[in-house]
């Protein structure tokens, strides 16, 4: 049986909190990439070109059904083989951003499909431009459908950032492992990492649910949407 050492805890806490900042940064950048690229994936699947939408569909399926950690290794190691060296941060952001872009594109797709067909037809009948159609009619209705999924993946990307430690991105998990292998004490660093994840992800998930409710209310929707 081993006991918890408080003085060791206070000693390593500042380093772990610094690691937390990098974790949040990685999750934030990754999510921004995913939001934009996901939209591109979703819109490419709505183009009239059958071939293009089919190809994009397969790419999305492939990314979604293979492990993120393997994709991180792939992006990091394949570049140098062909003479392009990417830093751990760059390759990590590309891998995690693309992975979640595939997930978010499915969220967008379901949300756009969730807007009733009559709404699109009415826009055509009223001679609205595509811009007006999307901005004034479709997006306000698609947003409440997309929000829960978008929120889940925001928390998801945050919880997947520890995988970036495998290529040496100095985020929270990497810091904890470094502390562990230096001091031979794993109890405190790994337990604190778990607690930090809980303390961030639970309130975030709660806040996102509140946000969804608020958006529905603002757009004048009932609970059923």
């Amino acid at each position, binding site marked *: 049986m*081993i006991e918890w050492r408080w003085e060791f805890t206070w000693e390593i806490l500042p380093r772990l909190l610094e690691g937390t900042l990098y974790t949040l940064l990685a999750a934030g950048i990754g999510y921004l990439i995913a939001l934009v690229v996901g939209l591109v994936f979703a819109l490419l699947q709505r183009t009239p070109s059958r071939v293009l939408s089919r190809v994009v569909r397969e790419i999305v399926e*492939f990314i979604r059904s293979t492990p993120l950690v393997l994709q991180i290794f792939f992006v990091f190691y394949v570049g140098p083989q*062909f003479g392009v060296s990417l830093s751990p941060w760059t390759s990590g952001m590309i891998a995690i951003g693309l992975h979640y872009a595939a997930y978010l594109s499915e969220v967008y797709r379901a949300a756009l499909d969730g807007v009733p067909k009559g709404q699109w037809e009415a826009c055509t009948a009223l001679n609205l431009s595509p811009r007006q159609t999307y901005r004034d009619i479709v997006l306000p209705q698609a947003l409440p459908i997309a929000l829960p999924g978008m929120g889940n993946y925001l928390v998801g990307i945050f919880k997947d950032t520890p995988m970036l430690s495998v290529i040496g991105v100095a985020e929270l998990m990497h810091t904890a492992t470094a502390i562990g292998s230096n001091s031979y004490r794993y109890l405190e660093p790994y337990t604190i990492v778990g607690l930090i994840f*809980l303390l961030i992800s639970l309130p975030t998930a709660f806040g996102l649910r509140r946000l969804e409710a608020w958006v529905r209310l603002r757009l004048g929707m009932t609970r059923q949407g």
Partner: protein
Amino acid sequence: MTYFEFLGEYGPRFLSGALLTALLTLLASMLAIAVAFCMGLMRLSTFGPVRWIAIVYIEFFRGTSLLVQLYWIYFVLPLFGLTLDNFTAGVLGVGLNLGAYGAELVRGGIQSVPRGQWEASLALNMSPAKRMWRIIFPQALVNMLPPWGTLLIELLKGTALVALISVADLMFEARQINGSTYLSAEAFGTALVIYYVFARFIISPFMRWLEGVMARKVGRA
């Protein structure tokens, strides 16, 4: 070295890694299903303490990362006198984590059974156990099967993390081969394709088949 020579030389290692990944997936999904049904039903209990145990379990495992949980099980549990070999730790970590997500699917599935079904079985004077087993459960199962298909693919992907505690699965072999040959595109690319084949051509068709069978059983085909 052409790709075929590469496959000829390292194919057997990819194969043994893939078999271990399949075994991990199978064992971890059995554990995850057991945990999910147990915790999902407890989550719906009207008895407070039982419900709270399930809520704490679900929120705890969904609130932290699988990788953090794996490392904790593998590196910290031995300090409390519970030493697990890496394979057991891997199955345990993946199964317990995905089981928490599964518990929410079980809860959603049971809650999706229309109220009238509960009332009708009450009117027919069924015992709570019989009502759950004969009426509610089969219908809930049909409703929750499609998301379970997605979850099992997540589980397959989760098993790749077990390589980080040195279980010689597909991911582990890919890293080893990459380390000794520097043929990264071939090593990691082959592993990616094998994972994709597992997900798309084994798990997905199996789940679709199961959905069909279950739908027929409750007369919804």
